[in-house]
């Protein structure tokens, strides 16, 4: 501990964003059984329960079958749950005083958010892959290009919910934030036409549904299969909600860093 030790000290690159932290954080998330069931098992089980009966398998949609259509919706649902829980991790970490502890390291707050978003998108990807794997062995049929395109869209568009999770994570101080967000996501999924097609709703409800955040993601993810619906409206929906949730998350995040 001599004075020249000062010169050897330096700050990490990228504000502390690094692979080692992402690995440790992923391992921690996978240790939480509730998260695993919620994000990986549940969407697949829903798909098996509601999507795989004989009539769905024999009725065709686009170049595939209704089972495939439902699979894409469930993959979107899974990706949504996964990215929301990834973002909402900040709530638990703030409650535990962990965010404060991290302020005693070189990790920059922006790098912390980037790590959280990366984790959210990684588990979102795993969730989509698990759903598609289960679907492929239980009768879901999609054209080859749709497997890839639908999967990618379901995953990429789930970024909306990573932002949503972050926003809620900063907004809600609760330790079990996902117990609140789980039902909220279920309602939003229903309202956005993920569990039942919008044309089974009344006209008024169907119109309102188009303004809810899940609608756009679902429409976009299924587009490569059905080539139907208003693509631009769906894109506008996704972009608007992503912007809204991001602004909300940034607002709360700024307040949070100013306060501590």
């Amino acid at each position, binding site marked *: *501990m001599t004075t020249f*030790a*000062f010169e050897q*000290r*330096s*700050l*990490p690159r990228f504000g*502390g964003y*690094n692979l*080692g*932290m992402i690995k*440790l954080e992923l*391992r*921690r998330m996978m*240790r*939480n059984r509730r998260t695993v069931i919620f994000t990986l098992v549940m969407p697949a089980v829903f798909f098996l329960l509601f999507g795989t009966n004989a009539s769905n398998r024999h009725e065709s949609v686009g170049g595939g079958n209704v089972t495939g259509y439902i699979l894409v919706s469930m993959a979107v649902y899974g990706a949504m749950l996964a990215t929301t829980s990834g973002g909402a991790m900040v709530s*638990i*970490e703030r409650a*535990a*005083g*962990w965010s*404060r*502890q*991290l*302020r*005693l*390291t*070189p*990790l920059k707050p922006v790098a912390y958010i980037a790590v959280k978003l990366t984790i959210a998108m990684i588990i979102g990807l795993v969730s989509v892959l698990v759903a598609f794997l289960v679907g492929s062995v239980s009768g879901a049929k999609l054209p080859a290009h749709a497997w890839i395109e639908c999967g990618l869209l379901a995953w990429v568009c789930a970024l909306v919910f990573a932002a949503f999770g972050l926003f809620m994570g900063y907004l809600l101080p609760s330790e079990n934030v996902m117990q609140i967000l789980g039902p909220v996501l279920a309602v939003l999924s229903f309202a956005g036409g993920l569990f039942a097609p919008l044309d089974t709703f009344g006209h008024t409800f169907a119109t309102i549904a188009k303004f809810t955040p899940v609608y756009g993601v679902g429409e976009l993810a299924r587009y490569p299969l059905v080539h139907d619906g208003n693509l631009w409206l769906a894109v506008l929906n996704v972009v608007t909600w992503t912007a809204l949730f991001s602004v909300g998350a940034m607002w709360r995040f700024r307040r949070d860093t100013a306060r*501590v």
Partner: protein
Amino acid sequence: MTLTASSDITARDTAEPAVDLDGVVKRFGAVTAVDGISLRIRPGEVVALLGPNGAGKTTTVDMLLGLAQPTEGSVTVYGRKPHDAVALGLVSAVMQTGGLLKDYTVEETVKLTAVLFGKDQSSVGEALERAGIADIGKRLVGKCSGGQQQRLRFAMALLPDPELLILDEPTTGMDVGGRHDFWQAIRRDAAGGRTVIFATHYLEEADAYADRVVFVRRGQIVADGTAAEVKSLAAGRTVRATLPGAVETHLRSIAGVDNAEVRGDTVYLHGRDTDSIARFLLTETAARDLEITSRNLEEAFLTLTADDATEAPK
């Protein structure tokens, strides 16, 4: 009342101080948590910030770590802004509570800290070893006792090999054995020359482990000196007498008086040689009704740090 047992500590200091607080004030709305603290700490000192709950110790610590910004005054740590010093690993801290995630193992928690500070994996084992928790590395944090969690925080704080280690009420909630083990670990570590500042409301801890004690009360420093000096201050006796019209500064100039206080017609003179103080009062002044009482360190602490019951609207 301000007792300054040793002013030479800062006077003989020419090197860059480890910590320099200059007229620091911190207000939270109408509440003033820190009310004008100026303090310099030299490299290598082990300093206790001693005071009752709510004295402003934790707020001071937060400002040293860049977790809070002073409303007025300036805080520098090794000549830098606190947060910069923290990011470089010059300063680290063991905080009072929280700051751990239950579903990490002990080893993973330290590993993450190592990753963030850009230290290699060998430093992880070393920190665990030095904090005395190498045997529970695989245990989940949620399954650790309070003492073990505190030693984990200590291991995390050791990781950047800081020049200055700050401990905020480090032994709160530990049993006697845990406290002893924890301080043994800190003491071994401080022997290597690290600067240590710890906040505590345990008088024994300040006495046993600090070589300088800073008493804090209601956001102000009320006494500052080496543990031995403060102890000798408190080890003296007090002469109480009735002396109308007395002036504190005059009383302080009496040989043997370390501190004097006037409350109405009553004067309180504190010093080691109370016999000669009494002799002086009775022969050279109009003082009467003399009474000589002794107080121990515990009482001195209470006198110095206790909040007056009459004024404390928070």
